[in-house]
């Protein structure tokens, strides 16, 4: 039990440490760790958890970490994964606040982060392609994906609309 808790903590610490710029940066990392490296969840379960994390209040990756931690090791697991994912923020801001202030305005650090963000775009695209193979399985799901993608590229749409539209279209189009 202890070894799975340590592994969970270490895994979510890595996810927290390389989620730079927030948002969807954690998706490729969670996918790599939780689905590919450890086989803890299937891609479909992972997508379900992200959906639940999106429709509940609070930061999405903390929500996802809690849910995944519970699935793998109960209440203790959920506390450990959440602690893991927030540890880098706590340590960096509480101990290295001043250093961070200097670093953030350093042109080299800036270009490192710019390069890293280019990589992030590639990784998130790839993650959406990988997860798409599980989610887009027939004509209705392909329609839901295409319609939402087109609408959201034309105008800014809150994630909540994606959730509401996905849920309603799912109820209507599911092959019962």
């Amino acid at each position, binding site marked *: 039990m202890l070894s799975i808790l340590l592994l969970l903590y270490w895994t979510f610490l890595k996810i927290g*440490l*390389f*989620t*730079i710029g*927030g*948002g*969807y940066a954690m998706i490729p*990392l969670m996918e*790599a760790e939780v689905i590919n*490296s450890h086989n803890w969840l299937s891609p479909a379960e992972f*997508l379900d958890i992200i*959906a639940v*994390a*999106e429709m*509940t*209040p*609070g*930061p999405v990756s*903390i*929500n996802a970490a809690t849910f995944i931690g519970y*699935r793998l090791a109960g*209440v203790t697991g959920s*506390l450990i994964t959440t602690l893991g*994912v*927030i540890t*880098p923020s*706590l340590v960096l801001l*509480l101990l290295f*606040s001043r250093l961070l*202030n200097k670093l953030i305005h350093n*042109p080299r650090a800036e*270009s*490192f*982060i*710019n*390069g890293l963000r*280019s*990589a992030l775009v*590639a*990784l*998130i*695209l790839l*993650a*959406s392609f990988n*997860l798409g193979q599980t989610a*887009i399985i027939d004509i*209705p*799901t392909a329609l*839901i*994906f295409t319609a*939402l993608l087109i609408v*959201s*590229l034309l105008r800014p749409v809150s*994630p909540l609309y*994606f959730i509401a*539209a*996905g*849920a309603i279209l*799912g109820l209507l189009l*599911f092959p019962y």
Partner: protein
Amino acid sequence: MPTHESDTLKTESLWSILLTFLKVGAFTFGGGYAILPVIQQEVVERRKWVSPACFSDILIITQGMPGQLALNSAIQIGIRLRGTVGGLVAALGVTTPSVVILLAIAAFFYPLFRDNIYVQAVFYGLRPAIVALIATAAIKMGRDILHGWIGIILCAVLLAIAIITRIHPIVVLLAGGLAGLAVCRRQYN
């Protein structure tokens, strides 16, 4: 002594820091980019804990460092108000609602409703919606970040490497960062 306004420690009760961020964590839907405006409204406009200029400094650090956006800005505001303890209390506030709500769902509701046909139908529709959400995030990020052909080529090369070699995303991220450094050095020299 700190002279810049943003360095000054104000004395707010830990209790009101905790309550403020509990509220932010419990009632804001839609993740980081939806939470930041709510935090701004709460701590800049309503409570005047930090100035707008100070808040934009906080945002710059929030977006350039590891971690969740809402969490990073909450911790920094907590530190400005009550030092290290304030930072910890703000982190506790913004995280606790997530843990409580998600534990309730994971432990009680998800197992109860997972096998229900209508719940399955909802998730059948939610999965492609989530993939569309992730793809949109990537495309929008690309539009915002990839200025000029160097960024686009770097992104395309890294994408190809990631597809072909299946190396860990952390390696791809570090490779991107180092490439960014190399490109910048050539531009300055």
